């Protein structure tokens, strides 16, 4: 009983993994993607290999995306969104609106599904909210995501004001994470790993650059993370345990003055940097509430969808499952595993029908 069709909302790392794994198991899968390409944020990130692979897993997004495009059992609906939802587990009906390919022309259609997997992902913290860091005001203050894109597209990083090679670079950790003053009392998990890998990448591209990472606590992920940190220290990347309070851009030269603590003397000083990189954290999507209301699923105090317990893929609505970062911050590997776990839950539900 129950149609062996599954609708996945969101075609990022988690959604794609759910789609491929379910399709391999013989399910007919629809992927609803609001953008015009699959892969989510990760396809815009840069490979962070220096002289060897640094295991950032970004290449995975490209490979998985392709697998999803070509799988005969996966139908991808680009530029589409869910309009309404009804039915019960095993027999849902979704109305979606999708672009027909022509400019701004939409059409609505109905999809049937036995189960629905929500994998809508996250959005980056809007760095402009931290006014004191001057993102949006000073061109040489960028987010780590801008840096990722620069490496992905141009393969290099230059100062936006004058195109010069940046020599003194600062990373600010926990921008939009671990900060209750802006309503984010959680750690985003991914910023420490990506900042360390990006700083290694910069250092290997610009060997005479001077990189300082301002941080509270370094959060490890995966095997031998202390080895990664050690390799950063060996390359000459400096770690300073304090978060700067303000960035000033006094002159037109593009030089930034960062107000921070001198860890040796304990005095508040202003240090000059060519480039400031804000390690922005993960936030729930702006439209997370829309889907929550549509499906009747609970959100946690920050707006992420609430799993039943311990990273569970089960939402409070039977037949509606969660996968990936829409449920809380996860790195690429964890999103992948979480997606596969959603597959297990979907399979369990269908097995219980028969």
């Amino acid at each position, binding site marked *: 009983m129950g149609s062996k069709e599954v609708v996945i909302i969101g075609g990022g790392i988690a959604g794609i993994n759910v789609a491929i794994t*379910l399709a391999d198991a013989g399910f007919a899968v629809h992927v609803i993607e609001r953008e015009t390409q699959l892969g989510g944020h990760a396809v815009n990130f840069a490979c962070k290999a220096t002289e060897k692979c640094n295991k950032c897993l970004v290449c995975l997004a490209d490979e998985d995306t392709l697998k999803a*495009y070509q799988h005969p059992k996966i139908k991808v609906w680009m530029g589409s969104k869910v309009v309404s939802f009804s039915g019960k587990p095993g027999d849902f009906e979704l109305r979606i609106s999708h672009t027909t390919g022509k400019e701004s022309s939409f059409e609505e259609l109905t999809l049937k599904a036995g189960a629905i997997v929500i994998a809508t992902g996250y959005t980056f913290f809007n760095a402009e909210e931290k006014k004191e860091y001057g993102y949006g005001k000073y061109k040489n203050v960028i987010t780590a995501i801008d840096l990722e894109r620069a490496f992905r597209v141009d393969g290099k990083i230059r100062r936006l004001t004058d195109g010069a090679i940046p020599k003194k670079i600062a990373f600010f950790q926990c921008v939009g994470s671990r900060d209750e003053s802006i309503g984010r009392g*959680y750690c985003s998990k991914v910023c420490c790993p990506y900042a360390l890998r990006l700083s290694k990448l910069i250092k290997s591209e610009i060997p005479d650059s001077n990189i300082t990472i301002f941080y509270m606590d370094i959060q*490890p992920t995966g095997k031998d993370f202390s080895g990664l940190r050690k390799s950063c220290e060996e390359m000459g990347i400096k770690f300073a*345990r304090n978060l700067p309070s303000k960035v000033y851009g006094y002159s037109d030269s593009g030089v930034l003055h960062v107000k921070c603590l001198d860890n040796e003397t304990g005095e508040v000083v202003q240090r000059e940097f060519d480039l400031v990189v804000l390690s922005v954290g993960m936030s729930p999507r702006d439209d997370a509430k829309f889907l929550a209301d549509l499906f009747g699923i609970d959100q946690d105090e920050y707006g992420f969808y609430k799993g039943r317990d311990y990273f569970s893929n089960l939402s409070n609505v039977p037949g509606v499952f969660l996968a990936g970062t829409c449920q809380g911050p996860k790195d690429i590997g*964890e999103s992948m595993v979480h997606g596969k776990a959603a597959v297990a839950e979907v399979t369990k539900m269908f097995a219980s029908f028969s």
Partner: protein
Amino acid sequence: MTKKISKTGIFIYGFEGKPGKVLGLDEACSSLGALGFVCFKCPSSFFPGEMNDFEKFLKKNKLSKVVVAGCGLRIKEPVFRDSLKKMGLNPYLITFANLNEAVVACGDKSEATKKAVALIIKAAKWVETQEPVEIQKVSLKREVLVLGGGIAGIETALTLAEGGLSVILVEEKSHLGGGAAEVGNLKNWTRDKVETLKKNERIKVILSSNLVDLRGNAGGFTVKIEGAQELTLEVGAIVVAVGYEFVLPVWKLGENSKSLIIGQKELEKRLVSDEKLSQRICFLADLVDEDLKISTRALLRQALLIKEKFSSDVICFCKDLKVSFNGGELLYKRAREAGILFFKYAEKPEIKFLNNAVEILLINEDYPHEELVFESDLLVVGEKMMPGKSFEGLAKLLSVDLDLNGFFQEDNVKILPTKSSRKGIFFVGGCRLPQNIDETLSEARGTAGEILSFLSKGEIELDLTSAKINSDRCILCLTCVRTCPHGAIIIDQEEGTAKVVPIACQSCGICASECPVMAIELPLYTNAQIIGQLSDVVGEAG
């Protein structure tokens, strides 16, 4: 039999950006055409997935073999192969000439074009000697063996069983639950899980037993279990979820140190048994292992519990406070609000013993870098998570590797963190990497999802691109059997030759390069093809 005329076509696409500018595509096409190749230059709007141009090109020219030349081809290969399959052609009679780096490096247009043409001709020669690759159906066993009855093993077994597969769970000890059964806040949860597991008809639990022998490959392993029960089973996949061990760092500090320094695990026991604890308690984290978040979570929970129960003075020392787990930051905040003090150190603290107390000296990493001295009645230290004693033997039995620290080595984090180097064998939980319960359970379910997807259809279609052994040449020296990292080569006793099991082979080519009598070949990299290319390079020079 009529002789098939195989015609090779050249399909060029995807030259945007720099390669497009340095390469004279039209010149390249005309010089290839002069050599008798059928050439097609794709409009720049071509996107893999919409293969009309490609399919039309093949049909129109009645081609059976094709070279695709372009940029960044590696990840697009399957699209082209799939397209061939759809047209009823063998998906392996195609080869790819990746021109990106070679062409960009030239700079000069005529030189770049010449180079591109040379590379395309090389690829065409390659595909001309390519044999079609066959497809084989293999049936898969729908049973799974789970080793280890801790929470990782239990969750994997339950998910698999509820998803429709049969599970045999083998536990070394005489009870289920593992380490979590001894942790205060997980005790009840674990007990409930064990009860659910016992009730599930699809799960067979075998206690006080071990895996002693393994044969076969993914989809059809034959395993032998010994201990309380002796039996031989056939399973389609194996999940290793055995537990790790806690080891307290060694202290050369005299006899009385034992009562003053305990591990977090020992503290947990005292907390569960409601023992009264001393007034001044210090925690020391990150001393032996900086990579694990699991002890930080336990530390925060235990510190809060002590504070609330006994209103003791609680002080924590750590290198970094690891809050990158569910609710971590809020737990840390609650601890600080409850009056627990946190100090961070860069250099390892010094520990001295007084009569009935421990003295901890450390330099505070925060300004003003003072040397701080604390006296404590009890010092709780985070243990080192060590590989279990059984890991080495088990790894040998399964023909998988351990990492530098002695834990199970995943094949490649990029594929799925829980996959081993052998198809059909997975590592879940602490045997690969000790993690928090959220992550461990997610891994267990994720692995179950992967296995459900793999086994539930009962059979699989394989493209036989796996290594092939020429039985006439094989001298049974066992070199391939020993060097294969995927356990994919077996000995066929009757025929007296080594044989590759296609489902397990990952086409790495190690056996082909190691075989002393050149009896092994990869169908997509035959000796003839490689020698052909080499003689092109060397031949001219003589």
